[in-house]
């Protein structure tokens, strides 16, 4: 959140949004981007109406939020960590279920007044359906070893990502849950592609 706006906490942000329904803007990397739907989930669970300003891709949107042209957005921590430190953007809350190791003093949005809110971005590897099980198994084994290795773990963390891993079945289950969660958010929010 840009510091020119008076909201320092999630509660103050909600009060600000309720005072001007549909007039407080938020930016995203584009229609259907993870940070677009994360804010739509926030709107649905918090019961507030914010106005979406979609951008085309990540770099420009961060520049504009830093300049105060759009007052707020969800963004992964690593690319904006230096601006948080310098006080150029404010962080009322964290989107995950647990607090961030990088910003341990900032509460999660769920604990700050929007229970049940959780939205993360992730990266996962898939193959076209019907790829042989042996090949899938071998790729999973190699991927798990790579994300656990220290040489990969620290540059991943520098990108703001926590290494994951797990079985193909675990990813399948996680994907079905994410798919169902966003189906609901899209339906509730009426989000669509232009």
């Amino acid at each position, binding site marked *: 959140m840009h510091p020119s706006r008076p909201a320092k906490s999630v509660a103050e942000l909600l009060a600000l949004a309720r005072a001007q329904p549909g007039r407080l803007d938020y930016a995203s990397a584009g229609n259907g981007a993870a940070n677009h739907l994360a804010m739509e989930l926030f709107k649905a669970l918090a019961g507030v109406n914010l106005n979406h300003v979609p951008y085309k891709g990540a770099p420009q949107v961060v520049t504009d939020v830093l300049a105060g042209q759009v007052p707020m957005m969800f963004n992964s921590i690593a690319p*904006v960590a230096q601006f948080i430190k310098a006080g150029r953007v404010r962080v009322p809350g964290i989107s995950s279920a647990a607090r961030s190791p990088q910003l341990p003093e900032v509460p999660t949005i769920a604990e700050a007044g929007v229970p049940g809110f959780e939205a993360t971005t992730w990266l996962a590897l898939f193959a076209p*359906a019907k790829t042989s099980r042996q090949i899938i198994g*071998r790729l999973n084994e190699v991927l798990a070893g790579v994300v656990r290795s220290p040489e990969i773990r620290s540059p991943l963390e520098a*990108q703001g*990502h926590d290494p994951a891993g797990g079985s193909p079945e675990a990813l399948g289950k996680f994907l079905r849950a994410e798919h169902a969660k966003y189906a609901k958010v899209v339906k509730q929010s009426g989000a669509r592609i232009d």
Partner: protein
Amino acid sequence: MDDHRAGNVQHPDRVALCRSTIGRSGLLSALLTALLAALPECTLALLLPSIATAQAWPDRPIRVIVSVPAGGTPDVIARLVTAPMAAQLGQPSIIDNRGGAGGLIGVEVAAKAIPDGYTLFLSSPGPMAILPHLQKLPTYDPIVDFAPIGLISAARFC
């Protein structure tokens, strides 16, 4: 008389061989015996391509489709993770950046790719969990058209 039949009749050696092993009345059973003898080989021959593919894989570079342009976090992580994976598998990986339409272009290409282990898809939530719900007529099904391999990493928003 066609050439095939002529061949059988006109080569005395072959006729003699047939007669000596099966006799005149055993032609049908000889055919069956020959077929049965050949069957395991046929079955093996049918199985061989898939066994050979799995054992030889990968014998050429593996393409990893990433549905964002080069330079962003997903692209950086794709390169970071797939290069050592490919090295362990003994082949290079090629990152194929197919950005555009919020990731739709990349995911559609990946969904239609040949499932031979030489095309993979590295995705964020957009193409696999969000975009299909935003399409009026979905052009792919992330659950049906893809086989999960593994979760790479996750990040929180602030």
